[in-house]
């Protein structure tokens, strides 16, 4: 891999200072660094300064009150995976965190970093010489998307494991920027553009993730498909959350990752409310998920397979959570 490029490192002690430093031209945040430092080393990111968030006091707290859980963006993934309340009431979140990369990454990779994970592509997450010999790509320095050469869009896939699990639990986030703080739905953090998939303005950072108590306690789960049992990003992943009423489905939420430029909260699942979840209904749920997934040729595994897998994962998890 390449030598480290030159940059200035800042280690602010508070959020206000971090936000101010990040608003400067060429600055980027780094939290755990499990993905960002790789991208800097590969020349995919070429920051003039890095703003390290690991010295900020209080970003690593998990607080609980009657409204629910309030998780600092600096909480590491292994804590999400092992926290008793999260495992019991927001099981998909614990499973998503435990599915990220390997044990070592989970011990310093953060929740905020995982939510802001850059989109990934076979033609993008490569070494400098690899990308150069391929004339780079639309997302980085080049003019052609090698996935869809005719178009002017980037289809790099969002590959975070935790975002879909938070989406099915109705998570909201606190964002702080140069213009102050705002609270938004996690779903509004993302947009359909592989080049620029986050709606954060320059300088804005996620500080807290809220999991509402009202959405806790219902069965939920996350599963991903990958080539190896560890380390790999998802080829496709699905989080499922449901409530039952007297053996029938009362409410169902499904979110996916790895099959679109952003995590997708699946639409049109209301029609399954009241269903006894027979085979036909489960097939319909799988098909609904499949039809809203748009994997492109961004991994070595073919899109048709990832599309089938994401539907199958959603179907299987729904059946399992319903006790079938």
């Amino acid at each position: 891999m390449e030598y480290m490029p030159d940059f200035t490192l800042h280690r602010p002690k508070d959020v206000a200072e971090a936000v101010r430093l990040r608003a400067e031209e060429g600055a980027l945040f780094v939290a755990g660094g499990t993905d960002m430092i790789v991208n800097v080393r590969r020349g995919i990111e070429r920051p003039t300064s890095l703003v390290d968030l690991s010295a900020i006091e209080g970003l690593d707290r998990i607080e609980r009150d009657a409204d629910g859980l309030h998780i600092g963006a600096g909480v590491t993934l292994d804590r999400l995976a092992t926290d008793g309340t999260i495992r019991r009431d927001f099981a998909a979140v614990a499973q998503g965190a435990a599915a990220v990369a390997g044990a070592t990454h989970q011990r310093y990779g953060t929740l905020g970093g995982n939510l802001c994970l850059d989109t990934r592509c076979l033609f993008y997450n490569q070494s400098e010489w690899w990308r150069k010999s391929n004339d780079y790509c639309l997302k980085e320095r080049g003019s052609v998307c090698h996935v869809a050469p005719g178009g002017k869009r980037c289809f790099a896939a969002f590959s975070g494991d935790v975002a879909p699990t938070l989406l099915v639990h109705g998570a909201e986030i606190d964002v702080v920027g140069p213009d102050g703080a705002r609270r938004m739905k996690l779903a509004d953090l993302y947009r359909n553009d592989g080049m620029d998939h986050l709606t954060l303005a320059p300088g804005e950072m996620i500080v807290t993730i809220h999991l509402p108590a009202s959405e806790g306690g219902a069965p939920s789960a996350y599963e991903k498909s990958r080539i190896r049992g560890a380390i790999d990003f998802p080829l496709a992943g699905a989080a499922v959350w449901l409530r039952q009423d007297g053996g029938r489905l009362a409410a169902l939420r499904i979110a996916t990752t790895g099959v679109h430029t952003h995590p997708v909260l699946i639409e049109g699942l209301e029609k399954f409310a009241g269903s006894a979840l027979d085979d036909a209904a489960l097939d319909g749920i799988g098909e609904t998920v499949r039809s809203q997934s748009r994997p492109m040729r961004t991994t070595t595994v073919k899109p048709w397979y990832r599309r089938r897998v994401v539907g199958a994962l959603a179907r299987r998890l729904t059946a399992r959570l319903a006790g079938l």
Partner: protein
Amino acid sequence: MKTLLSLTLNGRPRDDAVPDNMLLVDYLREVVRLTGTKIGCDGGECGCCTVLVDDRPRHACLTLAAAVQGRRVETIESLERNGRMSAIQRGFHEKLGAQCGFCTPGMVMAAEGLLRENPDPDIPAIRRGLAANICRCTGYVKIIEAVQAAAKENAA
């Protein structure tokens, strides 16, 4: 730009001026000359560079040296005591957990971190704890036995 890095390395406090863009693995190998920590993939995929920071395994190749300011860093060189192997080192030695040896320092440090957190891990817990470390020689069976042996010795 440089930072004055003050840390506790293998139990001893030290201060070094480190460039902002210096990685922890390069600091350990090039500045301190502790070359036990290996550079394998350079991208967090192989685990060869695993060290402990405040008792927790971490990739030295994805950590900036200046970011371990004030922290406690331990490398493979810290494990022996007066020339005698620690329990986890003895486990790898006696159960033949090392073949070519290149992954071994990272594997041992990840296992050491696992045993500090969970002194009596079952096989699934060992497999999960070492999931970020790749070994191309052993097939992992001997490595799992090495961790079990160390856990047993620590408990004795």
